[in-house]
């Protein structure tokens, strides 16, 4: 089969045209078919699907609608309270703490997504080479992802919290003086972001490894024959070929980072002086510690809106990659 005929077959397949003919022409369906759309079989299928659909509606739509109701009311955990419209959203957007949390969430997410992607990609490329005990390395590298966050957060706290902890001791020996990793606002942000990269890179490594595994090695050999350098091969072959998986992993990691509560809560609790308070933590504190249900849920809604926008943008990139 020639490449032209393959491309034609793919096009036909996308149009839903079988090999035997042109299929049904576009236009309204025959009247007889419309009448038979809801056959007993269709009803049976709907009935089978209904329990799952109802369950999904109850599990997803109901909480969402209830949360929206709370966001539009001035209530507590026990009472919905009076209707206040969009006031909670306005109040939240006027809060300096909301914008400082937004700012940190952006930093945390950008570092978390791209930091973990870079480390994950580098390790997945390394693991493609023939290194001794590669399987063992893979398992060891997965540990940060596997270990419960509460355990790793405790370990990181032990590593950096007090002047007698290993990292401050090393820093002092290196001549940096008494480095306050969690007490200094800027350093606390750095530590939290690094911790996020550390617990997330195995996920990226797995995603990138699976994407790289699907790349035909003959392409690299051909590029080598054509005189391509390693960097050119990586930039012009590897990255485009794994682009789809990369975008998917970015979408997922963005969601993971924006919604990440335990990493920050367990390591710094959002401090010092709110330096590491993210939006999800602010929403939690607002609802469950300040007992301001409406504003807290409004923060969560704003987060969801931004996440949807980011996901749509990245998803469009995936479609673009598919078309290309």
């Amino acid at each position, binding site marked *: 089969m020639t490449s032209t005929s393959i491309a034609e077959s793919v096009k036909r397949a996308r149009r839903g045209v079988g090999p035997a003919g042109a299929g049904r022409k576009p236009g309204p369906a025959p009247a007889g078919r419309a009448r038979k759309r809801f056959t007993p079989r269709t009803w049976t299928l709907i009935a089978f699907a209904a329990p799952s659909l109802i369950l999904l509606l109850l599990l997803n739509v109901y909480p969402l609608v209830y949360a929206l109701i709370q966001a539009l009311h001035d209530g507590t955990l026990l009472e919905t309270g009076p209707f206040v419209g969009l006031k909670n959203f306005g109040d939240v957007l006027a809060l300096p703490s909301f914008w400082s949390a937004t700012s940190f969430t952006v930093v945390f997410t950008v570092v978390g997504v791209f930091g973990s992607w870079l480390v994950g990609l580098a390790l997945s490329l390394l693991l493609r080479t023939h290194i001794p005990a590669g399987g063992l390395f893979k398992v060891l590298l997965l540990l940060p992802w596997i270990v419960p966050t509460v355990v790793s957060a405790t370990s990181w706290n032990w590593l950096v919290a007090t002047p007698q902890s290993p990292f401050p001791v090393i820093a002092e020996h290196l001549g940096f003086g008494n480095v*306050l990793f969690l007490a200094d606002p800027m350093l606390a942000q750095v530590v939290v972001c690094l911790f996020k990269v550390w617990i997330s890179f195995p996920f990226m490594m797995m995603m990138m490894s699976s994407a790289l595994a699907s790349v035909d090695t003959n392409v690299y050999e051909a590029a080598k024959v054509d005189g391509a350098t390693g960097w050119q091969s990586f930039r012009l072959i590897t990255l485009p070929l794994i682009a789809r998986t990369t975008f998917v992993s970015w979408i997922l990691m963005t969601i993971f980072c924006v919604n990440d509560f335990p990493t920050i809560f367990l390591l710094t609790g*959002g401090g010092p002086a709110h330096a590491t308070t993210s939006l999800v933590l602010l929403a939690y504190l607002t609802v469950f510690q*300040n007992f301001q249900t409406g504003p807290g849920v409004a923060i969560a809604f704003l987060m969801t809106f931004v996440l949807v926008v980011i996901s749509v943008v990245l998803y469009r990139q995936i479609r673009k990659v598919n078309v290309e």
Partner: protein
Amino acid sequence: METSRFTTSRRGFLGLVGTSAAVAALAACSTGGGGGGASSSLKFWNMPWGTPAFNTLDSKITLGYKPESGLPGATYQAIQWANFNQTFSSALASKTGPAISSGGGTQAFQFAKQGFIAPADGLIDSWKSNGIYDDFLPGVLDTMKTDAGYVAVPYNLDMRVNWYNKELLEKAGATPPTDWQSYLDAAAALKKIDVYGFAANGNASGGNAFQMIVGLMINNGGGIFDEEHKPNLVTAANIEALEFVRENISKGYMDPAAISYTATNANSQWKAEKFGMGFDVPNLAANVGGASASQLVVGDPLTSASGKKGALYFPNNIMMYKNTPSQKGSEAFMTYYYQNMKALWTQNTGIGLPVLKSIAATPEFQSDPNAVKIVKMWQPVAKTWAAPGGTALFSNISYVDSTPAISDFGQNVLSGKSSKDALTTFQATLTSLIKD
């Protein structure tokens, strides 16, 4: 081929599925009395106040309850601290909550405001004839009394008291402090041997430095709320107390990393003998453990710059709910529980300080000199979050009971913000949060 007699048609199967789903949904919707109306037993929910042994023994005490004829028995449920506000709120909203529970220190006051709490006045009156009423430590019962009556019954006490490491103080050539000036002197001596004399843990979620700071404000005759239950923070007494804290910080008596410390980090510093003196929880020595624990001693209540004594304490409590199979049954169980809870202290389950004199008088409790000193010397001068305006707690105290607002206040003070600025910011935050 022989077919089963129990073959089911597709329509029949779907019908069965539909019926099951409907029954399940109706059952879920109709679940009514928890603590509870439809239930025949009283639900008692208690928090993990100590080691795992606490809930085991507590469950045994509860299940050992033999009600009088016609009154309900009791069931036991341990509720974890994680998201406990949500646990109780959702249970009460769905009428599946307990008939009796402990919980957060201000929980009863919040729920009373929303009409969920059964007043304990009748119960407390009945205790005047059986000796329980007179058995409470002085002033403790009053902390639960509101205009609408007693919303709960004191159960155990938490407090912030002055601790020092005896050996380190001796090594530094200092004497145990008795007032703020001698505290600063002892801290200065400790600094000379590379030990911090002003222990603190200011972590935003796992620290309690704000409690120590408010304790010092109360020590100086100040506090958060006035007689009208309104925040009144920018006072001379509070500024003076914060200046004492700032002096400790500026002179290097506080570990500069303490602003990020959790209670666990602070415990490890006590254990490593990097902390030699400070204000901490009553069970500090047990929390620290190891060889250092035996050196930790509770000091005397300090006389402040204004010549006053005082401390912050938290009367944890047990509340009764209106959603009960029998109010008489709830009160009968409470009486049984208070007459039989002594073992929770004598068997050393890690629960806070007792509220009953008879428990404090047991040989087991008397064997711990630190605990005895706290009950004998600190409890009489200690006040609640309601100070200086009042004694009894009230619902708006929930805005300062380990909330972001007060945690921020603590971090602002520890980070060196001026006393007046820190108090003004806290005042503004509380005023914006408290609507009534």
